[in-house]
């Protein structure tokens, strides 16, 4: 049975799309047939991060409005087998999405895929609520920063009330915390919320920790999800995250500041 996972956060710019791209890539690399859907109608970006922007012909709204078939709109990833992208519309407004339409698309995708990732738009409006409505699990992307943590808490409130599982009083959505842009050095100096602070405030299970990394911008520049950069800290951290999503027990990495050697102190050094 396919699992529907929403990648959400409330606040914008915290790394939802980066995470949705990286996690879906990781799942496909592990042999899971995966589709990642961009719910950000009007401001699509997942296609850019996945590097398939020039192959977009039809989108989610076309499918919902019956202007294209689902298989016409799905884009096959060029790097990994088993990975597909369903882009958002660039021109339509967000009211083009209907709950029935989304349900219909998800029901069809469920027959073919193991994992369906929904990349939510920022905010708590209709688009974000539709992205989470049918979810079985949620990845709540949070930065170690006050407004992001507060918004994540708001999203947790919505997950617990405005979703199908909540409305039908079924088992609640499984909520996972994904902390991104974590900078252990700033945590050590006392200028950044610690991982434990965030966990204590939000009180949900930790799925992963992604360090602030130059590899993320490099990956988005090239349109290659950072999971493919297996030498980078962020790439490895997302691979760990995917393993935990699959139920494996993987120790946490990249949460402690590296002791700097004399050479790095003298010549400077950057995180790969």
């Amino acid at each position, binding site marked *: 049975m396919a699992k529907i996972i929403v990648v959400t956060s409330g606040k914008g710019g915290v790394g939802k799309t980066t995470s949705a791209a990286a996690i879906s890539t990781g799942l496909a690399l592990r042999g899971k047939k995966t589709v990642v859907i961009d719910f950000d109608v009007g401001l699509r970006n997942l296609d850019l991060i996945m590097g398939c922007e020039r192959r977009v012909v039809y989108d989610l709204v076309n499918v919902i409005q019956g202007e294209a078939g689902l298989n016409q709109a799905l884009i096959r990833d060029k790097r990994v087998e088993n990975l597909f992208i369903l882009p958002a519309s660039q021109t339509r407004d967000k009211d083009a999405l209907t709950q029935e339409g989304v349900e219909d698309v998800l029901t069809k995708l469920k027959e073919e895929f193991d994992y369906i990732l929904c990349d939510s738009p920022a905010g708590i409006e209709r688009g974000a609520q539709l992205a989470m409505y049918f979810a079985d699990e949620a990845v709540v992307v949070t930065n170690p920063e006050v407004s992001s943590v507060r918004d994540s808490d*708001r999203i947790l409130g919505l997950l617990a*009330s405005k979703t199908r599982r909540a409305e039908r009083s079924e088992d609640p959505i499984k909520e996972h915390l994904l902390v991104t842009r974590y900078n252990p050095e700033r945590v050590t100096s*006392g*200028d*950044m919320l610690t991982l434990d*602070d965030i966990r204590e*405030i939000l009180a949900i299970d930790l799925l992963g920790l992604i360090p602030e990394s130059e590899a993320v911008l490099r990956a988005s520049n090239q349109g290659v999800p950072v999971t493919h950069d297996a030498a980078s800290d962020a790439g490895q951290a997302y691979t760990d995250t995917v393993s935990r999503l699959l139920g494996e027990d993987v120790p946490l990495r990249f949460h402690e500041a590296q002791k700097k050697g004399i050479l790095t102190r003298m010549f400077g050094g950057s995180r790969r």
Partner: protein
Amino acid sequence: MKLMEFLKRERKKSASVAKERLQIIVAHQRSQRGQPDYMPMLERELLEVIRRYVHVDDDAIQISLDSEDNCSVLELNVTLPKS
């Protein structure tokens, strides 16, 4: 002496300020979770009605809705000033 005091003074780290502020705001957000959407409006209008008779501050009113088995209880607490 002044210099020593300055050096010894423990500056409160910004991350711990952030944590304290978040704990307060998140506790407040959670207390409102699951309430019907009309609650803030109801609270405001009730306050207006009370103010026609007594002058009370914004924070003098506390309102909560508790659900029990087959009924909901709306609890209203108003602190009136000493007359």
